[in-house]
């Protein structure tokens, strides 16, 4: 019941109503991130023997400006939000942009050498546009979702949306849904193509959080005790089985191992967090092992991935080519890397999407890749901390689920390109080229910012607010109402620590 004591302690804050929001720290860190990203861009230009001019400063300045707008919006709409979330994402996104730009340069040179026209528009320009769009999405979510608990009421709607999103590519003819053998896209010819699974993931996590919070008493208490574990009742296995079936459907129909693994892993983790029961994990992992074995036996595309993983050098110029080139890139980069713009990351296929970590590993080395992984650790840790500090069970589970999904997605793709686990296609959150992925991940960021705002917000008494901040805080106060009142449906959950 820690939140109650918080509330009680909050009354003391009346004396000092202005608790540090961390906004200034956030701004400083955003500037720092822009400086790093701009320096990275300068390094690329220098290493590629390109003339340095002030346009680089404009790019850096423009990036900082976009971030500053996001920062101001957070100040306005989520002023107590965790100050680390946006800067870490800004840094990852910026490094991704620089690497994509660098790969564009390589593609341009390759095209010129072939005697072709360079690809237009370059990926970096598109990714920059997508970043701007993603920031708009970020803003919309932040403004529209003024209280994350509201999302609970839309749980089943979102579940439906999620499943439909997952199903559309499976229903569409493959000409409109297939890219590189995976049928997971919605292609609008000539305009754009989106990967609906990225959005479905968010909808399903929100649904899972709401569903599990409402059912967690039943899920975590009923059952027989066997081998020191409390086994759930058969009928309570429903949600897990649904998750498994969903994952298998994605796997079978869309040939998308990565998304299947990500959905199943995230839902299993949320089930465990909701119930605190190891038995769910054990059952889930057994189910996963069984499913994986069956998939290996039944589906050739799964078998190929596993065989490449076991022996990528068996066919280094054929089926193992991607992974082998990725390992070569990493190996050539070594501890310190070749330097940004000085390596040949373009040799690895799909360097700007699935294999961007191999590209970064080649040019930034072990040192750089460690720093990037630490950024993900910080991002996930702050997300989980947001969940821990959250005053309602839904928020806890949602923040935990979203944060874990980011970490798991990163683990699946980075583990794949570094041959820790079999390679499955996924984007690296915030780094990879890809509009859908970027938009979806900024929505996740917005949700985390929103939840962290509510969990870090001092429970200010109503009369104190108008004194310090006449206009904006009145809005904040109206926002405060649902937190306490609407907490009722999930209060059984939210109350327990």
């Amino acid at each position: 019941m820690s939140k109650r004591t918080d509330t009680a302690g909050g009354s003391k804050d009346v004396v000092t109503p202005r608790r540090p929001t961390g906004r200034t720290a956030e701004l400083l860190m955003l500037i720092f991130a822009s400086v790093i990203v701009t320096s990275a861009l300068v390094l690329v230009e220098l290493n590629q023997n390109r003339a340095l001019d002030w346009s680089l400063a404009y790019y850096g300045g423009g990036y900082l400006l976009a971030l500053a707008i996001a920062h101001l919006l957070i100040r306005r709409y989520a002023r107590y939000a965790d100050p680390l979330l946006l800067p870490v994402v800004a840094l990852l996104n910026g490094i991704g942009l620089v690497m994509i730009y660098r790969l564009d340069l390589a593609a341009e040179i390759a095209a010129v050498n072939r005697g072709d026209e360079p690809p237009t528009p370059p990926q970096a320009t598109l990714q920059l546009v997508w970043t701007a769009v993603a920031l708009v999405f970020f803003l919309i979510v932040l403004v529209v979702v003024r209280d994350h608990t509201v999302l609970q009421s839309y749980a089943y709607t979102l579940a439906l949306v999620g499943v439909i999103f997952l199903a559309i590519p499976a229903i569409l003819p493959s000409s409109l849904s297939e890219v590189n053998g995976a049928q997971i896209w919605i292609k609008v010819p000539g305009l754009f193509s989106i990967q609906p699974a990225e959005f479905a993931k968010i909808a399903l996590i929100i649904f899972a959080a709401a569903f599990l919070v409402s059912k967690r008493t039943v899920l975590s208490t009923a059952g027989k005790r066997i081998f020191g574990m409390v086994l759930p009742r058969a009928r309570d296995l429903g949600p897990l089985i649904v998750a498994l079936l969903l994952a298998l459907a994605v796997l079978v129909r869309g040939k998308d191992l990565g998304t299947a693994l990500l959905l199943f892993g995230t839902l299993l983790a949320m089930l465990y967090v909701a119930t605190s029961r190891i038995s769910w994990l054990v059952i889930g992992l057994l189910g996963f092992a069984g499913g994986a074995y069956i998939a290996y036996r039944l589906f050739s595309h799964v078998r190929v991935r596993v065989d490449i993983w076991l022996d990528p050098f068996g066919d280094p110029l054929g089926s193992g080519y991607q992974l082998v080139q990725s390992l070569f890139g990493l190996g050539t980069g070594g501890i310190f890397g070749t330097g940004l713009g000085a390596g040949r990351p373009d040799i690895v296929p799909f360097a700007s999407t699935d294999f961007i970590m191999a590209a970064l590993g080649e040019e930034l080395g072990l040192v750089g890749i460690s720093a990037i992984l630490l950024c993900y650790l910080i991002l996930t840790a702050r997300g989980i901390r947001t969940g821990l500090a959250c005053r309602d069970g839904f928020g806890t589970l949602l923040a935990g689920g979203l944060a874990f999904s980011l970490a798991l997605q990163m683990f699946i793709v980075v583990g794949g390109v570094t041959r820790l686990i079999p390679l499955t296609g996924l984007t690296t959150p915030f780094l990879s080229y890809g509009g859908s992925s970027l938009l979806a991940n900024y929505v996740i960021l917005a949700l985390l910012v929103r939840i962290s705002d509510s969990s870090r917000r001092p429970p200010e008494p109503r009369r104190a607010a108008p004194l310090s901040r006449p206009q904006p805080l009145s809005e904040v106060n109206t926002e405060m109402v649902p937190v306490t009142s609407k907490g009722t449906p999930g209060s059984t959950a939210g109350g327990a620590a």
Partner: protein
Amino acid sequence: MKRPLRRLGTAVIVMIGLLLANIAYTQVIKADDYRADPNNKRTLVAEYSRQRGQITAAGGVVLARSDPVNDQYQYQRVYPGAEVYADLTGYYSMRYGPTGLERNQNDILSGESPELIAGQLSDLITGRDPRGGNVELNIVPAVQQAAYSAMTDKSYVGAVVAIEPSTGKILAMVSTPSYDPNPLASHSDEVQRQAYNALVNADPSPLVNRAIGAVYPPGSTFKLVIAAAALQNGYTPQTPVTGESTITLPDAGGATLSNFGGETCANGGGADVPLTEALAFSCNTAFAQVAMAVGAVPIRKQAEALGVDGNPIDIGMDVVGSRLGDVPDTASLAQTGIGQRDVAVTPFQMAWITATIANGGDRMVPHLIAKTTKPDLSVISQTSPESLGQAIPIPVADEVRDMMIASEQETLGSGGISGLTIASKTGTAEHGNDPKNTPPHTWYTAFAPADNPKVAVAVLVENGGDLGLDATGSKVAAPIGRSVIAAALAGP
């Protein structure tokens, strides 16, 4: 709910820890394996974008250099000597790999050699690009150019090698037809591919280095080796040998061996002639009998002493081995005596044999490379004259020399230089499945001045040059050899 969430946080730390451990394994422990893997193009690209060292001929004439350019590889390899030196330099192609000296001396030129690594560490600290070392050749441009022009003026297919007998310095090495290595070093894949395909489809192939990479029957030039063996086994230059136009080979079912044109030796009506005269008139019957009389073992011993031992030779480039053959019976011994049957030598080897005779039998290590230097021109390694010992006793070498002087006097063909005594031997070697109807390979090997040799040369012209079946060493190859000698003696 908070406790399992914390555990989930721990799980994330473990996951990232696993990733880091695996990446560290990949980037630190496995890194060298991955870098060295032949399928890893990055190492190649890195090498291609380094400022590669120069290849120069004597007098500092640049044969290959790297010019800075504004593209991803930063340096464009340029061959100012183009076709004249292509068989020395080779080419440095992204797509097809390096050849010639570019391949053989790659460690120096690319800066990979251990002597250059130390310099590069300091380069790293000072922030300069690591540069490659330079390779300076003994090749003398005037001699090389003369040899190349002489061969190409008549569109001859073949090779010329010139060696300084007293030092083993290789003064010229030409193989024709040649090619322009510049398009093969182009940064455009397309240009490379077109140039390469043109070379691959060309006939005769410019990609064969005929001086060091192909072996030919030496024909009568091999009589020098037989003579040297004979003179150490009871023969003198005056020893009478047969002058018959044709002899019947023993144990060969009545097969015969004839002199050139079916003539008797020195038109002497078939009477015995001195060994000197037999060499001067290149009488086959005489040398077949000499070979049979001397025996396979002493001949093999002399051939191996001169380097005809089947083993490849490293002169800074790889020379394929020259060989005597198995000599299974007496008939083949007779044919070996006139440089046919299984005897096969490179033009380089023939030049080396002649240079050894010129140097009084003292065999010098052949050096294509004078020295290698660091980017700052300080010397990494330098070659100096180095003897492999007496391959032929001095008196015998002197006797062979005198016989070669006599031979030159009987040799037709233009290009004689007044006041200069040349010692030489020609060869007209049959080859192919139908030897009598296939234009012969023609040879000329010589050194001059005979009393104080400055240059030894071997010339091979494939398939009769421009004379077809009528071709002889004296008519086709000798004029080329003499013009190379003239260029070498003209001095700087």
